[in-house]
C-alpha cells in the first residue's frame, strides 16, 4: 500500500497548495475579514472568496468607507480575494485574480509568493507560456521558503517551453540544493536528452540514480532515475549498463516491477536466460493487475523455451492464459461499472474526501471499478485537474440546490410578513396620526411656556405665576364684588374686605415671585425629560414602522432575479458536471480498454506460444524416444 501511495505522490510531484499566511489576531480590525481568513485557512476557498467579495462590496457601498473597519485591511483584502481565487483555481476569472495579485498593494514577498502560485497553476494546467509570463513578473524580494521551489518551477517551465539549454543551466545550479538534489539532477538529465545531449543526459540520470538519501521521496526519485536510465540504455542495446542501472532500483519501491522486467530483458538480450528467470520469476508472482507482471508471465515461459524446457513453458503459458482471462473479465466488469456511473458515484463519496489515502480506499468500496489498473491515470495531472473540477462542480450543485430552497423560503417570508402587517397598518397609521397631532400640540404648548418663562426673567409678571387656589379665590372675589355692587344695600365694609383680600393675594404673588419662577423652571425641566422620553418613543415607533415596511417591500424583484440567476447557474453546473464526469469516465474507460487490448493481445500470444511449446515438447519427447 505504501508503495502505491508513494508512486502516487511521486507522479504528482509538485508543491502542494499552501494555505494563506498566519495573521495576528490583535492586528485585526474587521471581524468579517477575520471570518474570510478562517475559511481560507481551512481550504474552504469558495466561502473565503464569497465572504471577502461581500465585505468588499459592502465597504465600497458605505457613505464613508474611511470609517468602515475594513478600511484598515482594504489593500490586503483586495489582494487576498485574488489570491484565494487562485487557490480556488480561478486563474482566468476575467483577469480579476491576476490583476489583484500582480498589481496588489501588498509587500513584495507576499506578492511574489502569490505570483509563484499563479505560475504553478498555469504550469500544472499545461499553460506553459502563461506560466513563463507570470514568473517573469516576479521581481525583488522572494520569501526564503519558496526560493528553491521557485527556481525549480522556473526550470520546469523553461523545459516545457522548449528552452532546454536554459532549463539545463538552472537545474545544474540546483543540483546541490538540499531536498531538491534528486529531482533537479533527474530533470537535468531529461533536459539534456531533450536538448539532444544524450551523453550528458545519461550521465545526469546515472548521478541521480546514485544520490544518497534516506527518505521515501528521495529513494523514489533515485529509483525513477535508475529506471529511466536503464530503459533508455536498453533501447540503445547497452544491456550490461542497463542491467546495472535497473538492478539499483529497490525491490520494494514503486518502480520495482518495471525494473525487474527490464533487468530480465537485459539478461535475455545478452543470452543469459537463466539469469533472466530470476527477476522475471519474482515479478510473475506479484499481483496480476500490473502490466509488467502480466508481461513477466509471458517472459518466464519464453526464457524456459530458450533454455529448452518446453513442457514447463507450456504449463506456465497455460497458467498465464488463465490469469489473463480472469483479468480481462475484471477489466470488462470495471468498464461496465464505470459506464453504469459507479466510478463517479464512488469519487463523490464523503468518506473519500476526508481521507488523504482515497486512491487506495476507492478500490475497497463495494461496486467501485478496479482502480488498481487506474493508478497511473489517477495520478496524472489531467485526471487530477478534471477530478478537482468535478468535485468543485458537485460542491456548487449542492450550494445552488440549498439556495433555491432558501430563496423560496425568503419569498414566503416576505409574503407572510405582508399578509400579516398590511391589514394592521391602516389602523396603526390612523392612531399614529392622531397621537402625532396631539404631540405636536403639546410640544407647541411647551415651547410657549418656555418662551414666557424666559421673558419673565427680564420683565417680571407675578400674576402669571399665581397658583390655582389664588386664581380661584380671585375669581370668587370678583363674583362677590359684582354681586355686592349691583345690590342696593351694598356695604362699604364688605367691599373693603374684598379689596384687602385681593391685596393679600397680590402681596403673596409679588413676595414669592422669585421662588415661584424658580419652581416654574424646575417644572419645565421635568417636562423636558418627559418630552425627551416621548421623542425617543416616537423615534422608536418611526423606526419600527419603517422596519415593518422594509421587512417585505422591495424584495420581490431582488428575489426573482436571484432565483433566476440561481436556476440558470444550477442548470449550467449540471451540464458542466455531466460533461466533466464524462471526461473522467472516458479517461478511465480508455485506460482500461488500452489495458484490456494489451491483455487480449497477450492472450493470443500466450495461446500461440503454448501450442508451440506443446509441439516442441512433443517433438523433444519424440526425438528422445527415437534416440532411445
Amino acid at each position, binding site marked *: 500500500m505504501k508503495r502505491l501511495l508513494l508512486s502516487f505522490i511521486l507522479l504528482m510531484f509538485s508543491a502542494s497548495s499552501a494555505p494563506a499566511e*498566519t495573521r495576528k*489576531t*490583535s492586528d*485585526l480590525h474587521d*471581524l*468579517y475579514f*477575520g471570518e474570510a*481568513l*478562517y*475559511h481560507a*485557512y*481551512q481550504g474552504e476557498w*469558495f466561502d473565503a472568496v*464569497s465572504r471577502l*467579495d461581500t465585505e468588499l*462590496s459592502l465597504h465600497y457601498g458605505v457613505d464613508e468607507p474611511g470609517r468602515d*473597519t475594513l478600511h484598515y485591511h482594504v489593500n490586503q483584502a483586495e489582494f487576498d480575494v485574488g489570491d484565494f481565487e487562485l487557490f480556488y483555481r*480561478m486563474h*482566468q*476569472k476575467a483577469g480579476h485574480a491576476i490583476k489583484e495579485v500582480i498589481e496588489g498593494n501588498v509587500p513584495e514577498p507576499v506578492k511574489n509568493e502569490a505570483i509563484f502560485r499563479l505560475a504553478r497553476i498555469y504550469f500544472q*494546467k*499545461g*499553460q506553459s507560456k502563461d506560466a513563463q509570463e507570470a514568473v517573469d513578473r516576479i521581481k525583488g524580494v522572494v520569501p526564503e521558503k519558496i526560493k528553491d521551489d521557485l527556481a525549480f518551477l522556473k526550470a520546469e517551465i523553461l523545459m516545457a517551453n522548449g528552452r532546454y539549454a536554459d532549463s539545463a543551466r538552472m537545474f545544474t545550479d540546483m543540483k546541490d540544493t538540499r531536498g531538491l538534489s534528486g529531482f533537479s539532477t533527474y530533470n537535468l538529465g531529461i533536459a539534456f536528452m531533450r536538448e539532444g545531449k544524450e551523453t550528458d543526459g545519461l550521465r545526469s540520470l546515472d548521478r541521480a540514480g546514485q544520490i544518497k538519501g534516506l527518505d521515501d521521496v528521495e529513494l523514489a526519485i533515485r529509483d525513477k532515475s535508475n529506471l*529511466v536510465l536503464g*530503459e533508455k540504455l*536498453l*533501447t540503445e542495446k547497452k544491456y550490461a549498463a542497463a542491467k546495472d542501472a535497473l538492478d539499483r532500483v529497490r525491490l520494494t519501491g514503486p518502480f520495482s516491477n*518495471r525494473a525487474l522486467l*527490464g533487468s530480465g*530483458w537485459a539478461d535475455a*538480450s545478452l543470452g543469459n536466460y537463466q539469469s533472466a528467470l530470476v527477476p522475471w520469476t519474482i515479478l510473475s508472482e506479484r499481483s496480476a493487475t500490473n502490466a509488467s507482471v502480466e508481461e513477466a508471465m509471458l517472459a518466464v515461459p*519464453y526464457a524456459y523455451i530458450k533454455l529448452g524446457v518446453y513442457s514447463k513453458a507450456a504449463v506456465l503459458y497455460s497458467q498465464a492464459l488463465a490469469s489473463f482471462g480472469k483479468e480481462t473479465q475484471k477489466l470488462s466488469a470495471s468498464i461496465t461499472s464505470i459506464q453504469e456511473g459507479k466510478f463517479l458515484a464512488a469519487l463523490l463519496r464523503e468518506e473519500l474526501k476526508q481521507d488523504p489515502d482515497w486512491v487506495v480506499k476507492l478500490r475497497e468500496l463495494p461496486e467501485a471499478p478496479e482502480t488498481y489498473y487506474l493508478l*497511473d491515470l489517477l495520478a*496524472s495531472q489531467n485526471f487530477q*485537474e*478534471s477530478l478537482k473540477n468535478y468535485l*468543485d462542480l458537485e460542491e*456548487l450543485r449542492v450550494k*445552488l440546490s440549498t*439556495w433555491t430552497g*432558501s430563496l423560496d423560503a*425568503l419569498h414566503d417570508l416576505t409574503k407572510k410578513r405582508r399578509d400579516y402587517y398590511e391589514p394592521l397598518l391602516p389602523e396603526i397609521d390612523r392612531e399614529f396620526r392622531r397621537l402625532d397631532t396631539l404631540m405636536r400640540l403639546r410640544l407647541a404648548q411647551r415651547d410657549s411656556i418656555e418662551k414666557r418663562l424666559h421673558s419673565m426673567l427680564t420683565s417680571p409678571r407675578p400674576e402669571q405665576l399665581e397658583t390655582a387656589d389664588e386664581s380661584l379665590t380671585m375669581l370668587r372675589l370678583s363674583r362677590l364684588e359684582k354681586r355686592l355692587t349691583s345690590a342696593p344695600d351694598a356695604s362699604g365694609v364688605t367691599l373693603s374686605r374684598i379689596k384687602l383680600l385681593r391685596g393679600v393675594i397680590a402681596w403673596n404673588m409679588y413676595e414669592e415671585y422669585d421662588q415661584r419662577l424658580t419652581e416654574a423652571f424646575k417644572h419645565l425641566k421635568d417636562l423636558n425629560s418627559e418630552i425627551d422620553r416621548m421623542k425617543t418613543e416616537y423615534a*422608536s415607533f418611526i*423606526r419600527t414602522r419603517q*422596519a415593518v415596511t*422594509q*421587512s417585505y417591500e422591495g424584495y420581490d424583484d431582488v*428575489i426573482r432575479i*436571484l432565483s433566476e*440567476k*440561481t436556476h440558470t*447557474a444550477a442548470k449550467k453546473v449540471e451540464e*458542466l458536471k455531466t*460533461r*466533466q464526469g464524462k471526461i473522467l469516465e*472516458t*479517461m478511465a474507460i480508455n*485506460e482500461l480498454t488500452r489495458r484490456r487490448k*494489451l491483455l487480449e493481445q497477450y492472450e493470443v*500470444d500466450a495461446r500461440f506460444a503454448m501450442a508451440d511449446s506443446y509441439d516442441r515438447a512433443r517433438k523433444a519427447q519424440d526425438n528422445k524416444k527415437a534416440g532411445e
Partner: protein
Amino acid sequence: MFNRLTGIVVAVAVLFIFSAAYAEDITKEELKGQDEQVQDIKSDVLEVSADLEKLEEKLLYPSGTEVSLFVSLAENETFRLDAVEIQMDGNPVARHVYSFKELEAMKKGGVQRIYTGNIKIGDHDLLVSVIGKTGGGSDLKNSQHFKVSKDVAPRIVELTLTDQGITEKTR
C-alpha cells in the same frame, strides 16, 4: 515474440520519459475549454452567493436587531479548544465542537462567526462556556457572564479565548 515484448518495453519507456498520454479521445483543447467554463461558472455562483448573503442579512437580520458573535483565540495560545457554548438571556443560541482544521485556522488568526441573530435594544446577558484541555493536558472548563448592550446599530461581539479566561469586546 521477443521483438514484440522488447518493443513494448521500449514503448513504455518512451511513454514514461515523455509523459503518459492518457485519454486519446479527449484533446487538450477540450480539457482547457471545459476548465475555462468551470472557472466562469464559479465566478457566476460566487456573485449569486454574495448577493444572497446581503439579501439574507437585510431580510433576516435588520441592523436594528442584529447581533453577531465571533470567537477568536488569543495570540500564541497553546490550549486545545474542544467546544464553545453560548447562552443569551438564559437561552442557548450556539454550540460548536471544533475540528482539528477549525482549530488550526483559529490559531493562524482566523475568526469564527459562531452566531448571528436578533435581539431587542437594551442590555442582554451573555453566558459563554469553553471546554478544552490546557497545554499541560488537564481539563479546562470556563464559564463567564458578559453584558451586551444593544442599540440601533448592528452589534458585533468578539469573544477572545485564552486558557485563563474569556475577553469580550463589543464593536
